[in-house]
């Protein structure tokens, strides 16, 4: 049997969705016989593979880097899942939207810093004016709201996806769940 190529991606989120994914505990072992984890913060591959069957994307799109990544991921993924409220709605990262990125940088790199306060201009990617959910940049095939979606939700959804079915997500989880 051909194993499904699964990727998980971490954009502007707190990694809570990945933690909840791991909270499937021993059930993860059961599932993992059916997929290969080809790209993820949980494993050590540096490059996104040429083609991935299912990608679980955690986090909103907040920086130019996130934007580049999501475009690349979309091109190389068959079924893209927006995983968790940040990816689905913008959620907590998007709470800066009414203020814009400048006051956030000020707060983080000046007000709260005593030694040599300065806003980084290299390495740290530039912030977008507004934090947006994934589907405002690329098409999304399945939405999995929840902050984070519960381990049981992950188990049901991934079991269904591995069986080639699209689960009824609204019966499992909701915004803020």
């Amino acid at each position, binding site marked *: 049997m051909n194993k499904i190529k699964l990727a998980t991606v971490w954009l502007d989120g707190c990694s809570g969705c990945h933690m909840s994914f791991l909270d499937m505990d021993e059930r993860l072992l059961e599932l993992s016989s059916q997929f290969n984890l080809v790209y993820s913060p949980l494993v050590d591959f540096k490059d996104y593979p040429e083609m991935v069957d299912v990608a679980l994307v955690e986090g909103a799109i907040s920086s130019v880097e996130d934007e580049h990544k999501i475009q690349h991921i979309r091109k190389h993924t068959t079924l893209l899942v927006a995983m968790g409220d940040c990816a689905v709605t*913008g959620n907590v990262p998007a709470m800066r939207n009414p203020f814009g990125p400048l006051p956030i940088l000020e707060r983080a790199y000046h007000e709260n810093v005593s030694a040599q306060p300065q806003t980084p201009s290299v390495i740290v990617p530039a912030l977008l004016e507004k934090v947006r959910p994934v589907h405002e940049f690329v098409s999304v095939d399945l*939405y999995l709201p929840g902050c984070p979606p519960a381990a049981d939700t992950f188990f049901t959804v991934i079991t269904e996806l591995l069986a080639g079915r699209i689960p009824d997500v609204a019966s499992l989880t909701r*915004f803020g769940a």
Partner: protein
Amino acid sequence: MSPAVDVKTLVIDGIDVSARADQTVLEVARENNIFIPTLCHLDGLSDVGACRLCLVEVKNSPKLFPACVLKVEEGMEVTTKSDRLLHYRQTILELLFAERNHVCSVCVTNNHCELQATAQSQGLTHVRLPYRSPRLGVDASNERFVADQNRCILCTRCVRVCDEIEGAHVWDVMGRGIDSMVITDLMQPWGESSCTRCGKCVNVCPTGALFDKTKVGSDHPKYPDFVPYLNMMREGR
């Protein structure tokens, strides 16, 4: 001899039902265990038809009608579930989510919110409209309560309970369209207003827009069931 009751018979979702002539389609549907989603309606308060979530189809009319203010009629044939209705209900919910900053994960009313629960019951898993992300205020001047405009859906339940049940009419709506805002008195801070601090508005608010700041933690259930009970007591039933 008891006064004659004017009885109407009608059909809701293919089920024959009878009703008093002064009843609404929503009331009759609920009596017959037919679920119609609502947000601005609350048992015991007057109905204003503000949220439009309760829209239903009536045979031989191209228009949709809000069930909470639609009086029953003899021979009426009502449909409460269809793809068209689901489409409108989802769109209404999406508009509500996009209009202000409803961040469910960091709301004190998370898991007790009618907007959140209704989104789930209507199968809404994401919002197709861009979020407006407006910059809105939070009024924490009242010693007991907080009003967070970010989470208000303008259902006006607070306005009606304050006027109709408490008799204080502290809450009202200011502005038009997208600028509409619930206010206390003539936009005085809540803590300096003529508020009696009864807490009725907090308990009928379907979202986390009004909450009790004297409660610790982030788990704030609401208890709006007192309204019909109070009405009943007052009518001496």
